[in-house]
């Protein structure tokens, strides 16, 4: 399996934070990885990652697919290299989990995290996979019911993994909902989802790249499920408002990836995210709505 990373971030004592990073992760780290960077405008390359500045105590996080621009980046290689330096690797697989087969053992990642709402499930719940030996060695992070086995005035014995990490009343309804989402995805089949989204993303790239005044971010890269773009002369928030009025829902902004945006020299982009419920007519509707926005703003590519 080819899986790539969108980014990495790191633990607090030693940061490795490539630019493709999700901002919520970068906050955890203090230092940025200088070896992994956006080489030039709209192009993500991995440079000199043969010497990642990692220590045995650090945990590095990587996205499989960059959430802001949809590029696939090489996860397996980063895991391998990080391991040669004694680092632990946490994969942020939110974008990959609903559309790719993921084998955490084959990847040999130490941790893998994903959220329910990125896989057609409920918000507020997610999954953290970890190697059992690592989880066993970790202390609980929160106190509450179920995380202890036995408590006396003298001594507290914590429950076993995973219960020691699940203090208090669990998110029961969220868990049931997430289970339904897993069944739903498994029922369709990740291979079918992958093929569908790969074809649809390709169609979207073809359509958008032929439109005057429209520029895809990360053009030429292997991408998946996300089309991030700029329309000349129209700010992403104006564009999003107009697309919304044409019943096309997109996200405009920095996608919680401000360091990447800064690197690309962009304040914001407009991002269309594709899912199993989308088809080519949605891409066509997006293109029509972009043309309508260009008409309002009197920009190149507009009908008037």
């Amino acid at each position, binding site marked *: 399996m080819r899986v790539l990373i969108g980014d990495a971030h790191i633990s607090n004592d030693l940061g490795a934070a490539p630019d493709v990073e999700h901002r919520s992760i970068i906050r955890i780290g203090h230092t940025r990885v200088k070896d992994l960077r956006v080489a030039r405008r709209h192009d993500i390359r991995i440079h000199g990652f043969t010497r990642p500045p990692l220590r045995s105590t650090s945990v590095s996080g990587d996205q499989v697919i960059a959430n802001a621009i949809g590029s696939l980046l090489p996860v397996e290689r980063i895991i391998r290299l990080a391991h040669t330096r004694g680092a632990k690797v946490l994969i942020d697989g939110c974008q990959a989990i609903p559309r790719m087969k993921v084998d955490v053992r084959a990847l040999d990642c130490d941790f893998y995290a994903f959220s329910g709402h990125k896989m057609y499930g409920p918000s507020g719940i997610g999954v953290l996979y970890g190697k059992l030996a690592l989880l066993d060695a970790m202390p609980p992070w929160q106190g509450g019911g179920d995380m202890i086995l036995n408590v006396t005035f003298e001594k507290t014995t914590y429950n076993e993994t995973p219960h020691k990490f699940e203090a208090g009343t669990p998110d029961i309804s969220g868990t049931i909902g997430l289970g339904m989402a897993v069944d739903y995805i498994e029922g369709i089949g990740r291979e079918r989802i992958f093929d569908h989204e790969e074809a649809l993303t390709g169609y979207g790239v073809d359509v958008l790249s032929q439109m005057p005044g429209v520029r895809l971010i990360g053009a030429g890269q292997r991408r998946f499920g996300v089309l991030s773009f700029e329309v000349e002369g129209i700010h992403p928030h*104006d564009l999003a408002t107009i697309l919304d009025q044409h019943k096309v829902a997109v996200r405009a902004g920095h996608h919680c990836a401000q360091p990447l945006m800064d690197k690309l020299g962009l304040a914001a982009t407009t991002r269309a995210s594709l899912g199993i419920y989308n088809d080519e007519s949605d891409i066509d509707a997006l293109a029509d709505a972009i043309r309508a926005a260009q008409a309002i703003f009197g920009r190149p590519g507009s009908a008037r």
Partner: protein
Amino acid sequence: MDLRDLYQDIILDHGQHPRNKRAIDHPSHFAHGNNPLCGDKVTIYLKMEGERIADVSFEGRGCAISTAAASLMTEILKGKTVVEADTLLRAYTAKLTGSAEPEIGAELTDDLDRLEPLSGVRAFPIRVKCATLPWRAFEAALKGGALGETVKTE
């Protein structure tokens, strides 16, 4: 809601060709306005002569709405007194949020009418902050003087 009610010609004109988009050397007052959710940034510069706004300008990056709002604001505020500017600020904010507008004197009616096109944001609640950001930065500049304070929408 017709999109042309939001993107009226005056908005598109000021959004694409903003007036007074420049820095003022040695401003007596200035402040920054940030919308962290969308990344829009604006800096408002003032040159006060006593109680009167002798010059006002802005720099920054933003959408058509926030750029047009800043541009129109600078045109209207130039020459106004602090009291007049404050009245317009309150009336404008009320107009955009649909709350009760304060009474304003006849001498400011024309100015408030010029801001009417921006009231199209009322139908797009998420865009109200775009239209108020430059005014909030102006308010911060008046209060903060040369401190260069920063106000955020969130």
